[in-house]
Structure formats: structure tokens, C-alpha cells
């Protein structure tokens, strides 16, 4: 299993009486695009929050590169190489796009609070490096000419891109995208799809939580399906599309049971 | 004699704290807003009662209480509409909202100083000096009004939250604003209702406080201790606010005796910090409101 970069082992999380994620074990291969799908309320976002450390599991483990990171707080997981985006972009509304991405470089920086006040040459070197790297990232997601626009003044699609650029600034080896195409038009969706492929081609591992089946099936190398918090199926997109249980889960259930 | 009288006076003052704390809690529940002007609302109630009394000196105390509550309630309604609602609509940051409530508190206190003067005023009614002997203990008659009003308030709030549509709506909004909006509950209306009720409770605290001591423009500080009470009993909990108030009242009289009366003002906050160390959400936290 040396090729596994991210794995969960019997991951479980309950809220009150409700078990949102129930004994889920799956593995993500290094350098792959991995889809995580399931009907509404299947526990995808909860699984994401457990992996990124936003909430703690009731039981089970999260492994990164073979190392147990279950007890690491969210910010420390970023330093190890996991970074995420949110279902609705969570930005720093008063910062410009450039500042936002520069903030994303936080874990790669060295100059601390005292250094920020008292170091001169080292600080200006680091600042210049961070700035040029951030400008590069903005250019990559097509926001170079919006570098000085405040986040609050960007369009929805631009906000999404900016959030991705900010995540990339941390140079993660695994990126978790939570419904990255929600609210985007087809052109923007295609742009994101290409970006994700490019990221994989440069050696990143991508995990997608998605609603848009066409998007996720067209992009993913492997797909994991959750239903009611449990693992339902895992395989290549083709295998999943022909899986009876999955089809039933998506189509065969009465609509009333679908929870928000 | 000593201990009993201390405990009773602590509990009565605790009831006053509890009433202010209830208002604080209700507004927090309905709007997620920390209303730092709540203590000054109490002061306003006390002064409005005084004005009512100087216009109609023969009016029974209960009427004074009701008049002050209605007048302050209206006032609360206006403040909510004019100052808080627009800020909340704009989705303003918590810091702005807290500073806004602080500003309103300063304006209320200093406007009251200019209007009613810097000297404290006293309700010139027999109740202010009436003593009743119960089991050999001399007790001010207003104690019974305070305890009675507190009991009625708890019953009334319970009925409100369990039996009326408005009350249910208030609870729903506090638990899940988005869903309740989908269900046709207007969050604006609930915040108005919460504000009016909180202002009325604050006014009642002010009027009931007056015969015990006096009313002065700077008594909003009393209300600030009620914040500590609300937090000790967990923000948003009706029961908790009342118990928190009683705890602060008792701790002040008894603690004041032990560590010295010169530190009385610190006790409420010391207890609060201690409670929060042990139970970060207060004594009566409800788990359902985690997020």
C-alpha cells in the first residue's frame, strides 16, 4: 500500500443519535483524482470535515502518507500537506485577491511576529517570493488582472477560483474540493476541470466531493460512494456507473427520504 | 438572624440580576446579539417609573410597574427597528454590533443624566420603606413583589415558549434561522418580539430595584453583572439566566462577607470565569446549539 497517500480506517462520527459517518474505510492513491459521491445526507461533507480536521471523529483513524493524523488539529494538517476548499467559498472579504493568496502561503513562510517587526532583508526577500508566487497562482486561475480587487467585489465564479488559488498556495500534496462546481456555469466548470487535471499531472492528489455526476465521472480515476453514512461501493467510474446498488441509491429511493 | 437575612437579601438582588439576565439571554437567542445596553434599559425603566410616579403619585405600585414596562417596551421596539435591525440586515460583524450596543448604552445613560439629573432619585411611596416581619425577620415588603414577579415571569415565559406560536417561532429561529425562514417565520418579527420582551423585563428590574435602593443614571453597571449571571447559567437558557442571577446575588452577599466587601464588584465576574473554566458553555448548556 505504499502508493496510498490518504486513507481512513473505520472512520465514524455521530451527532447526538444520528450517525453521519459510519465505519468508513477507503484509500486514495497518490497522484490520482478520487471522487466521493452519494445522495444528499450521505455523509460526504462530514467525511471531508473529519479528514481536514475541522471536527474530530467519534472513532476510527485518518492516515496521511502512512502517518496517523487523527489527533492533529486542522491547521497542522495543512502543514503536513492536506488543504481544502469549502462548499460555499470562505474568503477574507476585505482582502484583495492578491492578499488572499499571499495569506494562503502562510504555512510555507518563515518570518514570524518578531521577525515581521525586526527583520529587514530576510523579510523583504520572503515577501517578494510570496508575492511573486501568489501573482503566479492568480495568473494560473485567470485572476491576474483582478489582483487588487477585494474579495467581496468578485463574482461567484471568481470567488471559487480565488479559494482554489489560496488552497494551492499552501502547496498541499492532497487537495480536498468540496462541491467545487456548485453554482458555476459550464464554461467555468470546464475551466475548473482542466485545472484539476493539470494539478494531477503535476503530481497532486485530488479528492472531490461532488453532486455533478457527469463532472465527477468524467474526471475521477476512482470513485467512492457513500450512502446513509456507510460505504456503498468503490471502483472506477465505469464500475460505479454499472453498480446496481449505486443506481438504486440514486434513483430507486423515494424522494421523501432525502434529507437536506 | 444574620445568615438568614443575608441569604434572603442575596436572593432578592439575585432575582433582579436574573430579570436583566433573562432579557440579555432572550435577545442573544433571537438575534445572536450581545446587547450591552440591557443594563441601561433597566435604568431607563427605573426612571420612567419615577416619572410616572411624579405625574400620578397615587397610582398603585403595580400600575407603575406596568406603565414603565410598556413604555420601555415601546422604546426597545424603536431601538431595535432604528439601530439594530439595519445593522443586522447589513450582516455587520459582531464587533460592530457590540460597539453599537455600547454606544446606545452610553447615549441612554447620559441622556438620562441630562434629563433626570445626576443625583439619584427615590420613589416616594410607602413601599420604599415598608417592613414586614416574617418569622421574626424584618423584611422589606418589596421583596415579596420581586419574588412574586420573578415567579410570574418564569411561568409566563414557559407558557410563551411552549403554548404560543410566537414563542415557538422564537425558539425555532434561535435553533435554525435558515430553516425557520423557509417555514414562513419572519426572523425580523421574532427579533422585535425578543427585544420588546427583554426591554420590558429590564424595565421591571429597574422599577423593582428602585424601592430597594434608588435610581441613578449610572446604574447600568448593575446590569453588566447580570451579563455575568446570564453566562454562568448558559447564554440563551431561561432557567439558566434565573439561576445564574441567584448565584451571583448569593455569591456577592456571602462572598463579600468572606473576602471583604471592597471586592464585591469583582465577585460576579470571578464566579463567571471560574464557571467557564469548568464548563465552557455555562452551567445549563444545551448541546443542541453547538454551531
Amino acid at each position, binding site marked *: 500500500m505504499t502508493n496510498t497517500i490518504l486513507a481512513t480506517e473505520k472512520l465514524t462520527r455521530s451527532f447526538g443519535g444520528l450517525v453521519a459517518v459510519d465505519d468508513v474505510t477507503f484509500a486514495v492513491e497518490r497522484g490520482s483524482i478520487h471522487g466521493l459521491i452519494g445522495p444528499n445526507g450521505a455523509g460526504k461533507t462530514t467525511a471531508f470535515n473529519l479528514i481536514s480536521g475541522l471536527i474530530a471523529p467519534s472513532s476510527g483513524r485518518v492516515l496521511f502518507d502512512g502517518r496517523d493524523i487523527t489527533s492533529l488539529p486542522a491547521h497542522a494538517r495543512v502543514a503536513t500537506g492536506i488543504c481544502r476548499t469549502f462548499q460555499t467559498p470562505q474568503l477574507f472579504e476585505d482582502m484583495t485577491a492578491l492578499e488572499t493568496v499571499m495569506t494562503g502561503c502562510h504555512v510555507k513562510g518563515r518570518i514570524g511576529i518578531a521577525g515581521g517587526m525586526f527583520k529587514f532583508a530576510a523579510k523583504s526577500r520572503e515577501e517578494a517570493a510570496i508575492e511573486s508566487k501568489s501573482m503566479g497562482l492568480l495568473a494560473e486561475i485567470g485572476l491576474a488582472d483582478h489582483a487588487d480587487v477585494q474579495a467581496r467585489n468578485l463574482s461567484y465564479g471568481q470567488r471559487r477560483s480565488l479559494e482554489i488559488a489560496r488552497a494551492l498556495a499552501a502547496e498541499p500534496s492532497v487537495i480536498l474540493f468540496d462541491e467545487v462546481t456548485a453554482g458555476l456555469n459550464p464554461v467555468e466548470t470546464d475551466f475548473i476541470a482542466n485545472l484539476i487535471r493539470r494539478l494531477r499531472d503535476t503530481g497532486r492528489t485530488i479528492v472531490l466531493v461532488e453532486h455533478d455526476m457527469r463532472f465527477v465521472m468524467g474526471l475521477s480515476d476512482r470513485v467512492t460512494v457513500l450512502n446513509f453514512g456507510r460505504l456503498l461501493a468503490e471502483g472506477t467510474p465505469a464500475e460505479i456507473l454499472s453498480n446496481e446498488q449505486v443506481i438504486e441509491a440514486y434513483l430507486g429511493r423515494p424522494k421523501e427520504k432525502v434529507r437536506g | 438572624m444574620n445568615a438568614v437575612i443575608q441569604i434572603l437579601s442575596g436572593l432578592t438582588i439575585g432575582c433582579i440580576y436574573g430579570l436583566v439576565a433573562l432579557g440579555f439571554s432572550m435577545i442573544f437567542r433571537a438575534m445572536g446579539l450581545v446587547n450591552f445596553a440591557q443594563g441601561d434599559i433597566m435604568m431607563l425603566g427605573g426612571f420612567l417609573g419615577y416619572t410616572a410616579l411624579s405625574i400620578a403619585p397615587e397610582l398603585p405600585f403595580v400600575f407603575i410597574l406596568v406603565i414603565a414596562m410598556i413604555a420601555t417596551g415601546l422604546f426597545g421596539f424603536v431601538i431595535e427597528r432604528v439601530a439594530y435591525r439595519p445593522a443586522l440586515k447589513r450582516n455587520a460583524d459582531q464587533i460592530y454590533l457590540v460597539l453599537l450596543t455600547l454606544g446606545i448604552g452610553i447615549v441612554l445613560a447620559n441622556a438620562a*443624566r441630562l434629563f433626570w439629573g*445626576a443625583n*439619584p432619585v*427615590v420613589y416616594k411611596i410607602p413601599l420604599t420603606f415598608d*417592613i414586614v416581619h416574617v418569622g421574626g425577620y424584618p423584611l422589606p415588603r418589596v421583596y415579596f413583589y420581586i419574588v412574586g414577579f420573578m415567579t410570574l415571569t418564569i411561568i409566563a415565559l414557559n407558557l410563551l415558549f411552549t403554548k404560543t406560536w410566537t414563542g415557538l417561532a422564537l425558539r425555532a429561529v434561535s435553533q435554525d434561522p435558515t430553516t425557520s425562514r423557509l417555514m414562513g417565520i419572519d426572523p425580523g418579527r421574532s427579533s422585535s418580539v425578543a427585544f420588546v420582551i427583554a426591554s420590558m423585563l429590564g424595565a421591571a428590574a429597574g422599577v423593582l430595584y428602585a424601592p430597594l435602593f*434608588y435610581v441613578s443614571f449610572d446604574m447600568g453597571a448593575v446590569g453588566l453583572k447580570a451579563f455575568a449571571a446570564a453566562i454562568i447559567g448558559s447564554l440563551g437558557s431561561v432557567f439558566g439566566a434565573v439561576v445564574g442571577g441567584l448565584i451571583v446575588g448569593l455569591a456577592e*452577599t456571602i462572598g463579600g*462577607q468572606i473576602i471583604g466587601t471592597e471586592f464585591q*464588584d469583582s465577585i460576579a465576574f470571578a464566579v463567571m470565569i471560574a464557571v467557564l473554566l469548568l464548563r465552557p458553555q455555562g452551567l445549563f448548556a444545551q448541546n443542541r446549539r453547538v454551531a
Partner: protein
Amino acid sequence: MLRNLSRLGALALSLALAGQASAQTLKIGIVGPLSGPSAVYGTETLEGARFALEAAQASGALGSYKIELIPDDSAGNPGRAAQATARMIASDDVLMVIGGSTSAETQAMIEVTRPAEVFQFSPLAQATNLTQQGNKWFARLSQTADAFAGNAAIWAIERHKAKSVYMLVRNDNYGQSLAEAFGREIEAKGIKVAGRVAYEPAAKDFKPILSTMGQANPDFVAILGLYTDTGLIVKQMGELGIKVPTYANTSPAIPQFIEIAGPASDGAYGALYYFAGSIDTAAGKKFVADWNAKFKRDPSQYEGMGYDTMLVLVEAVKKASAAGKVTRESIRDAFFKIADLPVASGNVSILPNGDVKRPLPFVQLKDGKLKLDFLLDK
């Protein structure tokens, strides 16, 4: 911002220039709490001073001089009082400063007036140590806490035969310095101090203290504080049924004390800076008559002190101008030459250390009216 600042600067400059224009006008700063919880001291003192000044200007007692009062509010905050005083001296170029009311703000002002060598005259401040700093630029019209409370103790023992005294002390500079003198005299006379408790200035509920006090069973209670707390203490003593002769400092003369304490205030004793009607001299009677003619009521003790402050000042101006030019230094010297000056509160002398010698009236509240209990004039 630069423009704003320079505009403010220009304003300050013009104010300063205006000050130099008329040489006949003597500018006198007066600092005290005009707002905040202790506003009554500042506003009433100012009112009394203005009343006396009007009369003096009208009667031509000032000769060719004219006094302009420049008031400023300390709000009871020492820092604010110091700042106001510094401004008066530097920008308004005042001749001298009257103030402050509380001892803390008076001390704060001294730290400004003393190095600037400007004379300061306090109408009300009582802290004993204010006149014990070797400062030649300060004097006051009020008796020291030491004299005030010390004499009160002697009065309690000699006139009221107190045998066991319980002291309730406001825990600030004012209350503690009263208590020190009071306690010292009590002990010096071999009388028992049944208990001594300090309470926080903001305290409202005194029942815990009072029930302890009830158990000590004293035959005399001395409350050394301000009317807001003495009022509540006397009220709550009434509620607990504690009936002991009570000395409530200067409070019995303050209407709010009677309102707060209610029926329990009846019989309370106090000592006053000044008590209208206690002084039989011509000046004493004239003040009460004049005040009644204008305000239709007797003057309060602070109004009396403000009035007398101005009378003393007018006399000092007369003395200084008779001796030559009125300067910051000559006005100070004139103050220290005041001896047996007949003013509203009796005959006043300023002692070499800046303290005062004048009568001290003790009063009792009876049926809502103050009665002179004893006039200490030695």
C-alpha cells in the same frame, strides 16, 4: 488632518491673545465635577461662587479689577482635572485656580499648579495630607478630614456620651482619611471601637455588614462616606430595626440623603462645612437673606462654601492690589494674610500651612428639618 490641527492651533492662539488684551480682567480657573456622580459638589460650589461674584462686581468691591471665572469639568476624574488645570495655566494664563472638590482630583491639580507656581485654593477637599507637603502654592477653605472627623469624635464622646462606637468607612481616600482621624480621637479618649468596616464606594447592599454590626451592639454609629452610601446604610439600618444614634458625616444636609434613607433618617446627626442659620454674624445673616431673595430657599453647604471661597478671593484681590500689582505671587501672599475675615460661614483665617480656622456646625435631622446641635468655634 494637518489643516485641522493648525486650525485648532490658531484657535488656541487667538484664545491666548485675547487673554492678554484686557489687563484689568483677572482670570480665575475653577475646576470641579460638573458631571458624573459627584456633580453636586462642583455645580453647587460654582453656583455659590458665581452668586458672590455678581454681588462683588455690582458693589464695586473689586475696584478697577474684574474677575472672569473659567470653569471646567473634572467629572471627578483626577487625570481630567489635571489636564483642565494645565490648560488653564498654559493657554488661559489664569491668575490662580479654584478647586478641586474631591481629594484625589485636588492632589492631581496640585501636581500641576505647584511646579507652575500658580496658587490653588480648594473649597472642599479634606484629605489631611494635602497641606502637609511643604507646598507654598495651596490652601483651602474646608477643614481637614483630621480636624473634621477628629472634632466629630470628640463631639460624639463629650456631647453624646458615646461608650462603644462602630465605624462604617467608605473605602476611598476620603472615607479612609476621615476614619483615621475619627478612630484616633476615639481611642485617645479611651473609648471602645466596637468595629470598623470598609465598604466599596459602589456598594448598595449593606445588610451583611449591618447584621454583623447589630450583633456588636454599639451605642453610637459613625458612617464616614457620601450621601448615596450613608443614605442606604441608614435606610437598611431602619429595615433591620437597628436604632442607634448615628453620625452620617455631611449627609444630613443633603435632600437626597433624606429621600434615600426615608423615615429612618430622622434623628441622624452630621457635621457640615456650612449650615445656613448657624452663623449669627452680619455676614452670615446677609448671605442667607440674599440667597433666599434670589432662590427662595436656604443655601446648601456647598453653595455656602462656593460663596465664601469667592468672598475670600475678593478680599485677597483687595489686599494684593493695595500692596501693588496683582500677580500670581502677590495673590498667593494675600491669601495667606487672610485673618478673621467675616464671611457667611463665620470668621475665617488661613493658617501658614494652608489649612483653615473656622467654625464647624454639628446638626441633627428632626422631622425633615435640620437643627443646629452644636457649633464648634474654637
